[in-house]
């Protein structure tokens, strides 16, 4: 506890600057894009030198994302456990590098520098299949994905295989941290991801073995539950997830999917389920949970700003934008 008092207190004072759902809704209802940009800038995105504007918002958000984990340095402690949230960028880079390698092109322009391994170094490691700095899971992902790409010539397998090892790596870091909250977060992410895959696979009309191949182990829901749900009609499967974190998504999301044929609300509810879990960090007085949950909240906030800005600039109906907004940490 003692080591986290400073960090916890600092994060608590930063939490008040997180944008709330009400603020987002007010911005969405507001007709003026200038007002929106001003509010977002006051929340810490952009500066007087580089104001948050429709033409700069993408680069400001990307830059803010890049700097997000630098904030941990200010906390005076090395929070290795935050790698759980950072690994997504490493695996993004691996996917980009493998796909570029398969196509014989250079896409270093879309590599992210926010991972646990700098983008340029990752490019060397993947190119040389170098085991020195890659985690065991990253190495397996690189070898298996490049092999699958060579056999099938289908880049989709690069995504599938990399995602599987991404979750395995997150699970490893969470286990090493010994923190139950972080371990639970990874389980919630895995459950949400499996449910998304399950619904998509069933909508595509694929049989159980196809989903079974894509199933990510390590969540709270066993594959047998999905197998049982597979015997039901797609419109009836929700009941199998009663008592789980993703029950609401499975039930309400499925109803909306049936009505609209769109995955928008369903995927939002899956993400919200993970945020519901992260919100438990609010009830911890001192600890890594507070720091971890703040970074989850910050990532969700940036996702929401992107959704809002894209929607407003495209002239989308405010109610439609609101439907797409992810739950905030408040």
């Amino acid at each position, binding site marked *: *506890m003692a080591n986290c008092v400073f960090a*916890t*207190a600092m994060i608590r*004072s930063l939490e008040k600057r997180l944008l709330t759902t009400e603020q987002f809704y007010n911005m969405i209802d507001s007709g003026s894009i200038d007002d929106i940009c001003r509010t977002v800038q006051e929340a810490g995105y952009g500066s007087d030198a580089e104001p948050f504007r429709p033409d700069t918002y993408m680069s400001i958000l990307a830059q803010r994302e890049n700097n997000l984990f630098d904030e941990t340095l200010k906390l005076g402690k090395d929070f290795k456990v935050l790698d759980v949230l950072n690994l997504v960028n490493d695996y993004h880079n691996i996917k980009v590098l493998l796909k570029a390698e398969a196509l014989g092109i250079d896409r270093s322009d879309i590599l992210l520098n926010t991972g646990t391994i700098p983008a340029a170094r990752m490019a060397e490691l993947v190119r040389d299949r170098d085991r020195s700095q890659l985690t065991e899971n990253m190495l397996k992902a690189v070898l298996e994905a490049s092999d699958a790409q060579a056999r099938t010539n289908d880049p989709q397998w690069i995504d599938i295989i990399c995602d599987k090892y991404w979750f395995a790596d997150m699970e490893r870091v969470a286990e090493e941290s010994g923190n139950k909250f972080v371990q639970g977060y990874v389980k919630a992410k895995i459950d949400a991801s499996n449910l998304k895959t399950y619904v998509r696979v069933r909508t595509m009309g694929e049989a159980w073995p196809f989903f079974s191949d894509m199933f990510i182990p390590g969540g709270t829901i066993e594959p047998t539950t999905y197998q049982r749900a597979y015997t039901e009609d797609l419109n009836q499967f929700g009941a199998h997830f009663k008592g789980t974190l993703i029950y609401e998504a499975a039930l309400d999301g499925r109803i909306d999917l049936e009505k609209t044929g769109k995955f928008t609300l369903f995927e939002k509810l899956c993400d919200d389920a993970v945020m519901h879990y992260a919100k438990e960090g609010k009830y911890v007085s001192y600890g890594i949970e507070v720091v971890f949950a703040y970074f989850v909240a910050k990532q969700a906030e940036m996702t929401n700003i992107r959704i809002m800005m894209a929607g407003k600039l495209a002239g989308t109906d405010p109610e439609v934008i609101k439907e797409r907004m992810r739950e905030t940490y408040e």
Partner: protein
Amino acid sequence: MTIGVALAVFGAAIAACAGVGSGLGVGIAGEAADGVMAGEGTSFGSTLVLQALPGTQGIYGMVIAIMIMTKIGVLGGGAIEVSVAQGLALLGAGLPIGIVGIWSGIAQGKAAGAGIQLVSKKDGKLGQAIIYAVMVETYAILAFIISFLLYNGITVG
């Protein structure tokens, strides 16, 4: 020096250990205050009040310790005759505030630190934050009263 005096001195030392709780408590609250000051604008005054709260246990312990030392004459320079039973009784008098002071000081430090976080996040909550932290003080005061009553009931010499 007799065994009785030694036991009484030991009692005074235990009472003074309440300062350990205060030290840790003030440290925890101070760390929290540093944290919120490093974050987003929180007033120094409001954090200082909360940080100071866990300091009282050390004062209570010191008062009991001085009283015991005065009673046995250690402070005056000439220790008076204290029997083993009287020494043990004075040792017992030092225990409540010594033990409760350590634990309540730490607990109050945590409560004050959480209060500092509350103040940093929501304006106008200083009063409530102080009240929550002060609740812990009750038990330090009860221990101080017991130590004082025990001390008062012991006659030496």
